[in-house]
């Protein structure tokens, strides 16, 4: 049994939208400090799992524990980087103001100065400090995504969750993004949610795939798959090195790299 605390655990989770069963008997866990990927085709339930982790939806069966408690209680420990496709380009806001938002907590108004300092530090982290005063709408798509990463970093999160971080991103921004993530690997629990089923960044420790339906079930479940190095991976992919997801080598969803076998505790 490993001593490394568990950051996130799904136990027998089921979720459905009225008649539509989305998830059924989902079991997996992520340890603190691990770099994981959650992959699945569009419409497979990735967003639902994300919403359950963020406490935006409640499971009908089973239990989701985030750092040992209900997601709603502990979600402020998460630095969340949305895909953010619903962005309104006419919203007047500067890069610094977007990042500062990450330091907000509930209805408090305190700590404007601290939030400013933290916001500048986070912008430094993603190498965008020079653009702090620029309107957010003037940035390229890749830069905007890195601003959202900075926003997620402001509060010093124990876990980073990135939703489709490389969608519509140029190679340069992608490389810088993964440089930032490499810096945080091991220090922070990182979860990347993506529809790219074939490869993941070489930083990835574990990959969870959504999509398999157990016999007699309507909802999807989650399985863990093996990874192998991808030789000659193109340099524009994840900043240079990638791993191939072996979909035919299935590990038990609760299989754990920390003690070399299934871990239910």
């Amino acid at each position, binding site marked *: 049994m490993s001593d490394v605390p568990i950051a996130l655990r799904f136990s027998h989770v089921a979720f459905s939208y009225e008649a539509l069963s989305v998830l059924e008997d989902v079991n997996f866990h992520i340890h603190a400090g691990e770099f994981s990927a959650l992959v699945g085709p569009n419409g497979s339930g990735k967003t639902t799992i994300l919403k359950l982790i*963020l406490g935006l939806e409640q499971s009908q069966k089973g239990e989701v524990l985030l750092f040992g408690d209900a997601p709603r209680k502990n979600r*402020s420990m998460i630095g969340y980087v949305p895909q953010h496709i619903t962005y*309104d380009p006419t919203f*007047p806001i500067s890069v610094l103001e977007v990042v500062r*938002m990450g330091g*907000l907590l509930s209805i408090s*108004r305190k700590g404007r100065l601290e939030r400013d300092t933290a916001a500048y530090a986070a912008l430094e982290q993603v190498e965008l400090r020079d653009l702090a005063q620029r309107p957010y709408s003037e940035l390229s798509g890749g830069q905007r995504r890195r601003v959202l990463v900075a926003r997620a970093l402001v509060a010093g999160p124990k876990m980073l969750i990135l939703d489709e971080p490389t969608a519509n991103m140029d190679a340069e921004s992608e490389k810088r993004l993964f440089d930032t993530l490499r810096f945080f690997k091991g220090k922070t629990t990182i979860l990347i949610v993506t529809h790219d089923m074939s490869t993941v960044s070489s930083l990835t420790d574990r990959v969870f795939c959504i999509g398999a339906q157990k016999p007699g079930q309507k909802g999807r479940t989650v399985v863990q798959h093996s990874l192998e190095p991808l030789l000659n991976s193109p340099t524009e992919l994840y900043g240079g090195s990638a791993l191939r997801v072996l979909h035919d080598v299935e590990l038990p969803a609760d299989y754990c790299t920390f003690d070399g076998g299934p871990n239910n505790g």
Partner: protein
Amino acid sequence: MDNLFGFFSALGNPDFPFVRNALLAGLLSSILFGVIGSVVTVKRIAGLAGAISHAVLGGIGIALYLSATGKVPGITPMAGAIVFAILAAAIIGVVSLKAKQREDTVIQAIWAIGMSIGVLFMAKTPGYTDPSSYLFGNILLISTKDLVLLFSLDVIVILLAWRFYPQIEATSFDEEFAQVRGIPTQWVFLLMLTITAVAVVLLQTFVGIVMVIAMLTLPAGTAGYWAKNLAAMMGLGTLFSALFSFGGLAAGWMLDVPVGAMVVVIAGGVFLGTAATKMLLTYRRRRALHHD
């Protein structure tokens, strides 16, 4: 020019307090239009505000009827309007938050039903009541008591906007993220709708339903083209709104036309002009970049 001079001398003339009151009302309303208008614009709830302000006519109609028939003596149109506004805001708020579909149908239904109730009750009210006076209002009928009410709401709105600025900004920019940060986004939204509803009632009794909707969107929309952030948008929106009100009042006086309609035409003209200029500038900048 004589007319303009006449307007300014009327402003300073103690025998014409209504001109001065109208100007003061315009300036005090501008704060509401600038601050609430900016929130309504970035939060994209102008349609909801439109439905609330039109539904208010139902409350006005019922109040007029109850008072004129002696069933509830002395009930003011504003009291009826407040009840309907809060009711409409509550229904629209809950529908927007809970209903996954047909949200716009419900909102349009409330808009139409509210107005129709108003027209029906006005028709049965003894004596003649002209619904159009509530659509366009009459800024020249403002009393000192009304000004005090407006001023009070200004103070409340400024205090709320200052206190909850980070939350307003976050929920308007990225609601899901705001929720993850523990901001009670649904309550913020309902509070926004309620404040908008109360402001709409107060404003529309002076300037009319049509002008309220125009002034909640046009000055803030114009400001949005130039402002760097939401706070600047609120400030600029207030300034634009004050200028439009002053311009409309002066032009209305000089040309002897309804002030409310004049203000809306000026606000609309400036908004469309700004939008066209901005589009042209963006187009030219893109072309210049393309040729580099």
